[in-house]
């Protein structure tokens, strides 16, 4: 059996948001959509303030509220614990987004092609030597494949206008035996991913050696993401430095 889980060590996280960028590059999510999101919190009043960080990927709950409310079974829970969205099944009712207490779901409000970042003018011919004509916009070819034994188009983002998308634990990488992009990128190794049913896997060892807690335990969602160190966010904190990007 395989059961994937992620450990997030808050004592190591420095809030660099590199994981957010890696996720965007890997999954081609549109502007304003952050499948991996890192909260930057501030607590107290100047000069006695304290900052803390909280990476928030999809929690891939074993008792996922989004799976329960999906009217057409586009959102489903695999035996290995990954919760996925079938972009070809989703009808865009956005109920999953409301059911999720973590706020990890992102809807494609417009054609994804029109919502990619426009810092660069992709039509500029002088870019061709660099991009080899792969843009606009660059699209990871793995994302349109069918993955897993269920063989559905579940990987990556920016599929279609009017469908819901969210973190997939980079299912297209996991299926190849790789770590998710955020884990791969993290410069401080604050993110650890792997199979918890294998006692020798790095994540199993990490979880054994540390005390863990889970986000919004009281919601009864049984997440597959475990936090180490730090503390659950209180109501006293203020979110600062939200990304400027909007839909």
């Amino acid at each position: 059996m395989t059961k994937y889980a992620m450990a997030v060590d808050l004592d190591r996280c420095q809030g660099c948001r590199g994981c957010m960028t890696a996720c965007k590059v890997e999954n081609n999510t549109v502007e304003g959509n952050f499948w991996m999101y890192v909260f930057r919190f501030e607590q107290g009043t100047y000069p006695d303030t304290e900052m803390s960080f909280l990476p928030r990927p999809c929690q891939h709950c074993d008792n996922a509220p989004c799976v329960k409310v999906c009217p057409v079974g586009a959102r489903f829970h695999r035996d290995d614990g990954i919760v996925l969205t079938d972009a070809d099944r989703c009808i865009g009712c956005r109920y999953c987004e409301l059911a999720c207490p973590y706020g990890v779901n992102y809807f494609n409000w417009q054609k994804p092609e029109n919502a990619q970042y426009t810092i660069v003018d992709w039509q500029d011919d002088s870019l061709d030597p660099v991009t080899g004509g792969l843009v606009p916009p660059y699209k990871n070819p793995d994302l349109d494949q069918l993955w897993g034994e269920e063989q559905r188009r579940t990987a990556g983002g920016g599929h279609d206008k009017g469908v819901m998308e969210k973190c997939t634990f980079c299912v297209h990488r996991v299926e190849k035996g790789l770590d998710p992009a955020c884990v791969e990128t993290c410069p401080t190794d604050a993110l650890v991913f792997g199979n918890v049913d294998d006692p020798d896997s790095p994540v199993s060892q990490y979880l054994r050696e540390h005390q863990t807690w889970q986000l919004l335990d009281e919601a009864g969602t049984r997440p597959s993401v475990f936090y180490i160190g730090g503390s659950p966010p209180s109501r006293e904190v203020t979110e600062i430095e939200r990304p400027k990007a909007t839909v």
Partner: protein
Amino acid sequence: MRRILTVLLIVVGLGLMVVGYVSSAPWGTSSITDADPAFTGAPSVFLIGIVTVLAAALVYELLPARDDDRVE
């Protein structure tokens, strides 16, 4: 005739609704497929069940009168 047909339609319709409802989602399993109905289109069976039950009222009222009905 009219009554038999009406009752039959109601019974068949309710039966279809039960079948459609139960097979719309296999309860109690935890596999990948538990997000999908037992067979594709199972919800349509439920829908046809609703329509069949309602058709009973139409049949009861609209079936052209025959001699045996006059005796009622």
